[in-house]
């Protein structure tokens, strides 16, 4: 595999691995925890690095993931003390942890390969240089193996605990009532988020982890109505955004992580605009459709009111309707056209008269109002 394709593979695997726990974060309204964890693992990484002197050691992964879970415990202890609200607890804990990490690095590690830029920004372009070799056989980039393992573990855990995760996410009290231990599920999920963030930080940086955990599931949330399809869509969106971002970065020779994050945002923006039922365009069309429908009913009420009365020749003339209803002429034309198209009114000389169906609908409208 060429280095470019290896980068793509790492990006896609990381994106999918992040989208899996991310789906639950978005649904549980704890998305910002991913931001907190991805920053707060820094001191764990640093200390483990001091001990092992190896950025790819599994000890590092375990220590950093434990730091992530510890961060969550700390945040929740603050919330439970009821002295500080939830968002402020997050905003206090993770900068403190991150600061400890930065200070440790600049005091003790200024001459080794471990700097804050790398943690925060990541550099996917260098990922293929770290190879996993057994004997003399080159098995591919280390990052691909580590993220692949994390993806597999995430997928297996989610499949095994599908019911528990779902119930604890949509109805934590019911889950507790049925003896499902939502707290265990919660910390399990947080461990999953931590491990994924740690695994990804080296390759893609902590900011991209946040983008990958939140944006694809949020996009899927606009498109799907059920958990299963939502997760499937989130995975597809994550893979697509990673591919698009990778392609753009290759073409423009810019930061791959940044480009993928931008692609995530672009995909979300497109579905925010164009999602079939929840998109802005669909909302606008639905609203204008409702407006037209309401106007047609008003037209019918007006026609029914004057039907068979002497002033009908004046009130129901097609060219005079707009002044009687107080509408703009063009709008009136559209409304009458719509009513004709739905066979609710018909022309009779210069007059517009309701058909039988139109009469029904108009009566319904009036009765509806008198309720």
């Amino acid at each position: 595999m060429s280095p470019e394709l290896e980068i793509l593979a790492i990006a896609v695997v990381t994106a999918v691995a992040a989208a899996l726990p991310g789906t639950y974060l978005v649904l549980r309204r704890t998305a910002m925890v991913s931001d907190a964890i991805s920053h707060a693992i820094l001191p764990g990484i640093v200390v483990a690095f001091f001990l092992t002197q190896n950025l790819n050691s599994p000890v590092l992964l375990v220590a950093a993931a434990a730091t992530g879970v510890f961060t969550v415990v700390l945040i929740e202890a603050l919330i439970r003390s009821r002295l500080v609200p939830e968002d402020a607890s997050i905003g206090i804990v993770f900068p403190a942890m991150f600061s400890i990490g930065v200070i440790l690095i600049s005091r003790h590690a200024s001459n080794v390969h471990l700097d804050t830029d790398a943690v925060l920004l990541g550099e996917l372009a260098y990922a293929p240089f770290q190879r996993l070799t057994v004997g003399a056989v080159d098995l591919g980039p280390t990052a691909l193996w580590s993220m692949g393992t994390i993806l597999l573990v995430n997928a297996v855990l989610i499949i095994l605990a599908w019911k528990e995760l779902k119930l604890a996410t949509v109805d934590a009290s019911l889950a507790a009532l049925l003896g499902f231990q939502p707290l265990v599920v919660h910390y399990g999920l947080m461990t999953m988020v931590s491990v994924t963030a740690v695994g990804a930080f080296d390759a893609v940086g902590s900011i991209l982890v946040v983008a990958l955990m939140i944006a694809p599931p949020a996009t899927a949330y606009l498109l799907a109505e059920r958990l299963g399809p939502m997760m499937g869509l989130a995975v597809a969106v994550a893979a697509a955004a990673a591919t698009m971002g990778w392609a753009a970065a290759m073409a423009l020779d810019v930061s791959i992580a940044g480009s993928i994050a931008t692609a995530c945002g672009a995909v979300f923006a497109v579905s925010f605009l164009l999602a079939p039922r929840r998109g802005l365009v669909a909302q606008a069309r639905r609203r204008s459709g409702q407006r037209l429908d309401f106007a047609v009913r008003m037209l019918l009420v007006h026609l029914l009111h004057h039907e068979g009365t002497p002033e009908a020749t004046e009130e129901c003339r097609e060219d005079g309707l707009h002044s009687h209803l107080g509408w703009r002429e063009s709008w009136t034309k559209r409304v009458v056209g719509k009513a004709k198209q739905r066979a609710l009114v018909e022309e009779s000389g210069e007059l517009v008269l309701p058909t039988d169906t139109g009469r029904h609908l108009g009566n319904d409208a009036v009765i509806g109002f008198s309720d």
Partner: protein
Amino acid sequence: MDFLGDYTLRIVALGSGVLGAAAGALGCFAYLRRQSLVGDALSHAALPGIALVFLLTGSKAPLPIMIGAALAGWIATLAVRLVVRRSRVPYDSALGMALAVFFGFGLVLLTLIQKRPDAAQAGLESFLFGQAASLLREDVVVMSALGAACLVVLALLWKEFKLLSFDTEFGESLGRPMRRLDGLFTLLLVVAVVIGLRTVGVVLMSAMVVAPAAAARQVTDRLAPMVIIAAAIGVFSGVTGAVLSSVIPHLPTGPTIVLVLSTVVVISLVFAPKRGLLWRWIRLGRLQPAAALDPVLMHLYALSLQHPEEPDHGHGLAVLRTMSPTGADLERVIGDLEARGLVSAVGEGLWAPTPIGRREAERNLDREGEVGS
């Protein structure tokens, strides 16, 4: 050591102090409105603005860069508001997404800049993690002017912002333009965040907004003192952090300021009078034994009332156990009660309240009557 004689230190300390005051004061409102993480999102989202201004003008002058940063942050908050209002994506997801996507885009722009032959971009990276030591006089002048402007607006619209933080609906019913005030408040917060980017950097800015407010909130229940205390904590942490990092080698300013702030928060959480953890622990410690003893004493008293003729009619632990929650350690409680002279053994495993115990129980009843009335 001659702290105040050192020109660089004076500049850095002044800049950090100004930042602390503005972020601390404005942070209180963000804190009370449950928008503590907006500062975090704003500071990350500022990156593309900084990069774009540099790409377009090629200059690193503080004012244009700050304006670019503020514009980008502002656009990000508008995007968050739009997404939350017009879709079912929750607030925190929208915020996190804006943060990461804007930052990622900024990163793309930064790498574009780095490719330019005239790459004088060295100073730009300092926005990421802050580099207080690189602050110049002109930076601090701009920072101070902006910070002062923020505080003046805050003072002038004090009542309105108070309303915005505590009861937006009431403000709307009074005909106040609450949506526009909300926008103005976000603008002020944007300015405060932008002031801080050069000093503490993108990642740590959220602490400058949240932590002083959280510490001040523990000490007071009123807004004006809270804002003043938060601003004071902000100044103190900013200056202390700047001094510490210049005295101790290899101590970066931004993280040091944040750790000083975090220490203040911890102290406040533990020692704050009335609200603090220590206070709560002492009060609970005083209440808990009484709370456990009282029900058993009251049960014994209630049982003894059924035998008004024989004050020494005793009752066994089995009876008390049916009246108590499962798992209650009745042997220990009854022992404590006996040690305090409130009950006495009147036979084999039978207990009755002593006269003192009766009086205590009656006093309890009186007290409950007062609470109930």
